[in-house]
Every structure is written in structure tokens, then in C-alpha cells.
């Protein structure tokens, strides 16, 4: 019996045990952005501390960045202040910053992998809960708070409790029109938003083996929505080929040497886990949330379950969710009218997401009255999409084509829902008020499903829009 990837990486990075019993864990890569870092730099200044390994921290700007008019100073004075703060801080402490003038800028969880900063076997931390995304490469990646950002800056370490490891196997093959987003929404629905507390999730089995890196990132991204501390996929040839030649990976023979080490990290066939669950791909169909947490979802052909089908202690929450969403138990989610369609975010703002959405948008028109926006996750994705003419397909269909950033995933920039608007969104959170209006409503789904909803003006089944030959 051998140990799993998580334990191997954890042990390699263990500095020691702290008086509290926690592990002091070395962090191989630290990513920062403008929202959760300014107070951390202040802490360093107050204590007269330096950054211990400035070359292991990289910064980008994403949350507050306007995606239409990016001229400085920003119209929003507070956003401008945060932007200047990260510029000053990175300059003063010697940290590389991907700012708006740098073509490496984009959402923090997109640019790490894109630049090849995210690599197998690393421990990664970022002051953002969706840091779990980087686990797609077989890295152990944790979202942390601002105080912890200061710890990593000052010591390159964190005080951590070691989670248990749960292997989640999904066997079989996904049907056409069923995407990585549907897989993770399905898993969260089955295990619950608290199911992962105390666990790291290892995603394994045929479905993940077949996925490309972008799909694996979509899955790992939402581990946190299932309560898990992090999620990962074992590195394989798909991982290695994705990384080969990227700017921040070793080049030439050095790369092959690193690749051998990465392969050796993967959990072997006899690796042990604290818990194992198994699902089958043929149970998964296009999935849409109907509630106010990401576990409150149904397959597109199902009805919203009756309240009494939920465990007694969840029923109050279910009623609250239905009331907030103005949805009825026992009714289908299909046909629900939408006001806004949002394609983007660190969950689904990558080139393969945009290609798939464009394939469905091509030759169609956004329904009248629907505001539809496409926001690439990074400047490089934006350029790639434009070189393929995707922006023209989107614009011809009536979508707005925006600059890179977090946009409507959360309400920190000018892109926001208004009033009670209903949004079909490719992002990761359907919390009350998440998309900027305190009463706004979010339906999470795959980018393909968002596109289909934009065209229909209502939630629909994207499978009916895909021609069978194009699988």
C-alpha cells in the first residue's frame, strides 16, 4: 500500500509541528490580487517585516477591474485606490505584478496555470477561496484569509490542520452536452455543501482521465463549494503536455526531468484514502441550480424536488431558497425566464468554454430583453478568442464582448445585476446578492447552457441545440 498524492506533497512541504499541534507548511507558490492583499502588506509594514521569498509570489488584478472602460483613473475611486495600493505594494516588496498593461493579466486562477506557474507537486496559497482550481495539476492549493496572506509573505509558510483525503471516482463517459461544470454540480448536490468539511477531494476515474486541463480546473475550482479544503486530479500526460513550453516551467531536458518527478507523485493504484465514493457518468445531465447554494440543483429534465424530500434539518433552508428565488417545488427549472446571461469567471472563462459557447451562439440571436455578456478570463484568452473570430460570432449573436476580469461573478466592479433580475451564469456561486443586486437571482450552469438560455430567453436543454455529429 502506498500513500496518495496529497500526503506525499504534504510531507515534502512540512517544516515542523507548531505548539498548537498544527503543521507549519511551506508554500511553493503564492498568488495575490488587489482585494485581499492590501491589509496584509500593512501588517508587514507595522511589524517591519520583509517578504521572505519575493520570487515565489505573483500578483495580478482581477476583481475590481472594469471590463468595459479600463482608462485610469477608474471611475470608481475606491477601485482606483485598491489598484494603486497593489502597484505600490508590489513595487516596494519586489513582487512581480501582472497589471492591466501586461498581457499576462487576468483572473488569478486562470493566469497561474496559463503562465505555467501552477505545477504538479506544489503547495499553492492565495487569498481567495477558489484557489482550489490549481489542484487540477496535482498541486495542493488552499484559499486563505488576509492574515494568512501576511504569514505567507513573511515566512512562506502557513499553520494548517491536515485534512483527510476522500477519493471521488466518476466512472464511464459523459454524454454530449454534459460538461465538467455539470459533473461538479452533480457531485456537490450528492455530497452537499458541507460534505467536504475536513477533506481534500481527489477526483479520479475515467471521466477525469478523459478531461482536458481546462475541464479539470472547472471541477477543482468548485471543490470549495462542496466544503472541501482543496481538490485535485493526479498529474498525467495531459497535465504534462499542457505545461510543456509554458513561460514559467523548466525548459528542455529540465522539463523532462521535472515531468518524471510529477508522474511519480500521482496516487498509485494501491494508494489508500480516508474515504471513497463513486458515481457514474450516465447519471449526470446538464445541471442547473434553483436555490441559493451550489448544492441546490437539478438535472434539466427533472423537477425541483418537493420540500419534504429533503432531510428535516434542511427544509427551512430549502423554503427560504425557493421563496428568495420565487421558484416552486415540484416544477421544472426548464422554462424559467432569464434577464441576464453571463459567460466568464475562473470556473468557466477559459478558451474551451468560449469555443463551446460560440459553437452554440453561431447563427443564433440572443432573445430580446436579455443582456448577455462574454468576459474572457485573461488577456491571453481574449487574444486567442479574437484570433479565432469568436468575438465576432458572439457580437453577431448579440453578446457584449468584454475585457478580462472577474466581472459579474461578484459585485466588486461595474458589472452587476439590477433588482430582482435572474441571471444564467457560468460562475460558481448563487448566494443571495452575489451578483451585485441584494435581491438578484443566480442560476448556475455550464457556459453552453448559459448560451442556450441566452438564445431562448429562458432555461433550456442545450443538448437539443447540439447537432449529434458535432460531438
Amino acid at each position: 500500500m502506498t500513500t496518495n498524492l496529497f500526503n506525499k506533497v504534504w510531507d515534502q512541504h512540512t517544516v515542523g509541528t507548531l505548539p498548537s499541534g498544527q503543521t507549519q507548511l511551506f508554500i511553493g507558490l503564492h498568488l495575490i490580487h488587489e482585494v485581499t492583499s492590501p491589509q496584509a502588506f500593512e501588517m508587514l509594514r507595522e511589524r517591519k517585516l520583509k517578504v521572505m521569498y519575493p520570487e515565489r509570489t505573483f500578483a495580478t488584478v482581477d476583481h475590481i477591474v472594469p471590463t468595459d472602460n479600463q482608462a485610469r483613473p477608474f471611475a470608481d475611486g475606491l477601485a482606483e485606490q485598491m489598484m494603486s495600493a497593489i502597484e505600490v505594494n508590489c513595487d516596494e516588496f519586489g513582487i512581480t505584478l501582472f497589471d492591466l498593461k501586461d498581457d499576462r493579466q487576468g483572473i488569478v486562477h486562470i493566469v497561474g496555470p496559463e503562465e505555467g506557474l501552477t505545477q504538479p507537486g506544489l503547495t499553492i496559497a492565495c487569498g481567495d477561496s477558489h484557489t482550489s482550481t490549481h489542484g487540477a495539476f496535482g498541486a495542493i492549493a488552499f484559499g486563505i484569509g488576509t492574515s494568512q496572506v501576511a504569514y505567507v509573505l513573511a515566512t512562506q509558510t502557513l499553520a494548517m490542520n491536515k485534512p483527510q483525503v476522500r477519493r471521488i471516482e466518476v466512472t464511464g463517459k459523459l454524454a454530449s452536452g454534459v460538461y465538467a461544470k455539470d459533473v461538479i454540480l452533480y457531485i456537490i448536490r450528492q455530497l452537499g455543501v458541507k460534505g467536504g468539511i475536513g477533506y481534500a477531494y481527489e477526483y479520479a476515474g475515467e471521466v477525469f482521465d478523459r478531461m482536458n486541463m481546462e475541464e479539470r480546473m472547472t471541477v477543482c475550482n468548485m471543490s470549495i463549494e462542496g466544503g472541501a479544503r482543496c481538490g485535485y486530479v493526479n498529474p498525467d500526460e495531459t497535465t504534462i503536455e499542457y505545461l510543456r513550453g509554458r513561460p514559467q516551467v523548466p525548459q528542455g531536458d529540465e522539463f523532462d526531468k521535472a515531468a518524471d518527478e510529477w508522474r511519480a507523485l500521482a496516487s498509485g493504484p494501491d494508494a489508500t484514502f480516508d474515504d471513497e465514493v463513486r458515481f457514474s457518468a450516465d447519471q449526470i445531465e446538464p445541471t442547473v441550480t434553483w436555490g441559493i447554494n451550489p448544492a441546490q440543483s437539478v438535472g434539466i429534465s427533472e423537477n425541483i424536488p418537493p420540500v419534504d424530500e429533503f432531510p428535516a434539518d434542511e427544509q427551512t433552508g430549502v423554503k427560504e431558497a425557493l421563496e428568495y428565488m420565487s421558484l416552486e417545488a415540484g416544477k421544472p427549472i426548464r422554462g424559467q425566464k432569464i434577464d441576464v446571461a453571463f459567460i466568464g469567471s475562473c470556473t468557466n472563462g477559459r478558451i474551451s468554454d468560449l469555443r463551446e459557447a460560440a459553437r452554440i451562439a453561431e447563427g443564433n440571436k440572443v432573445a430580446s430583453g436579455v443582456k448577455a455578456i462574454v468576459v474572457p478570463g485573461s488577456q491571453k484568452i481574449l487574444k486567442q478568442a479574437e484570433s479565432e473570430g469568436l468575438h465576432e460570432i458572439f457580437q453577431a449573436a448579440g453578446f457584449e464582448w468584454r475585457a478580462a476580469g472577474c466581472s459579474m461573478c461578484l459585485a466588486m466592479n461595474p458589472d452587476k445585476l439590477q433588482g430582482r433580475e435572474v441571471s444564467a451564469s457560468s460562475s460558481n456561486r448563487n448566494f443571495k446578492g452575489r451578483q451585485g443586486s441584494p435581491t438578484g437571482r443566480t442560476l448556475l450552469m455550464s457556459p453552453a447552457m448559459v448560451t442556450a438560455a441566452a438564445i431562448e430567453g429562458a432555461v433550456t436543454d442545450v443538448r437539443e441545440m447540439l447537432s449529434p455529429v458535432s460531438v
Partner: protein
Amino acid sequence: MTQITQITGTGIPLLLDDIDTDRIIPARFLRCVSFDGIGEHAFEDDRQQDKSHPFNQPQYHEGSILVTGRNFGCGSSREHAPQSLMRWGVKAIIGESFAEIFFGNCTSLGVPCVTAERPALEALASLIKSDPPLEINVDLQAKEVRYADTVVPVDIAASAHEALVSGQWDFLSQLLENKDAIRKTASQLSYMQS
């Protein structure tokens, strides 16, 4: 650092489940470079939509012990959430369970999050409603919450408990003590060679 062993104060009853960090502090209040002034925006949207929200009610304004439900603080890692509660005046949270990152953030701010059984939380929350000036004592050392003549056993992760009662919840100084060990670990990692 201060040892945190006893917290005494009045309560704020908010016995709801799955309260996420976007509700504790809506994202638009994250547009700041310091945590000053963030306290007044705790639960801002919930308060605007629900005039009877406990954070709107004057009888709980002095409250420092928040009583809540399951999975409190789920969602984002933003420290703005515990910071806003702390700056509002919350000194301890009693709930059925807590989201992990939120729990860790609270611990590093010296705000203990302790767990109790649901019936005990319901009893406490309804007593606070009928008697807002009720004095509640969170005894971390004994892992008990006491009020009137009731004693409720509570739990908290061993590492957080140890850190708080020994005054070692400022992890930064502990981490800084081990710089040699940090450098040694770093030197053994192959990616640190290149």
C-alpha cells in the same frame, strides 16, 4: 499575546443555517485598502431587506456573543467577514458548525468559534430573545457556555483551543521563529533549486 479564556457578554440570536460570507459582508464593501469602518456594514443587505434582522435591533446592539446555526461563514475566504463581525463587536460565536476557512480566520483574530448541539442553541437563542440583557459566559478553558443556571458543553478544534487559551493565536510570531527550518525545507524541494 492575550490569552483568551473567558468571554462574557450579552447575546445576538441569529439561528440560521448556511450563512455565507457574501451575506456577512456584501462584496461591494470589499472595495477598501484597510479594515477600518467595515464593522458598520456587517450583514448590510440582510439588514436592509429585513428590518427585524437582529443586527437592526437596539436590544442586541451591545451584544458580543453571536448565536448561530450550521455551516456559518461558508463561501469566500475573505477575512473581511470575520473582521466586520469583530469590528461590529462580536467577541465569540456559538454555532452548530463553521466553514473551515472562516473558522481559521476567526481564530487568527482571537475570536473563538465554538460548537454546541442544536437544541442547546435553540434554547439559548430563544432565551436571548425573551431576555436580551442575559449575561452569557463562554468559558474556553472549561469548554462550557454558561448562562442563568444552565451549563452547555461546547467544542472547538484542539489546535484552535490550544492557540487561544495559551495566547498563541498570533501565528505569525510562531511561524517566524522557525526561519532556519523553513530554509531547510525549501532547500530540499526540487523546484526551489532552479
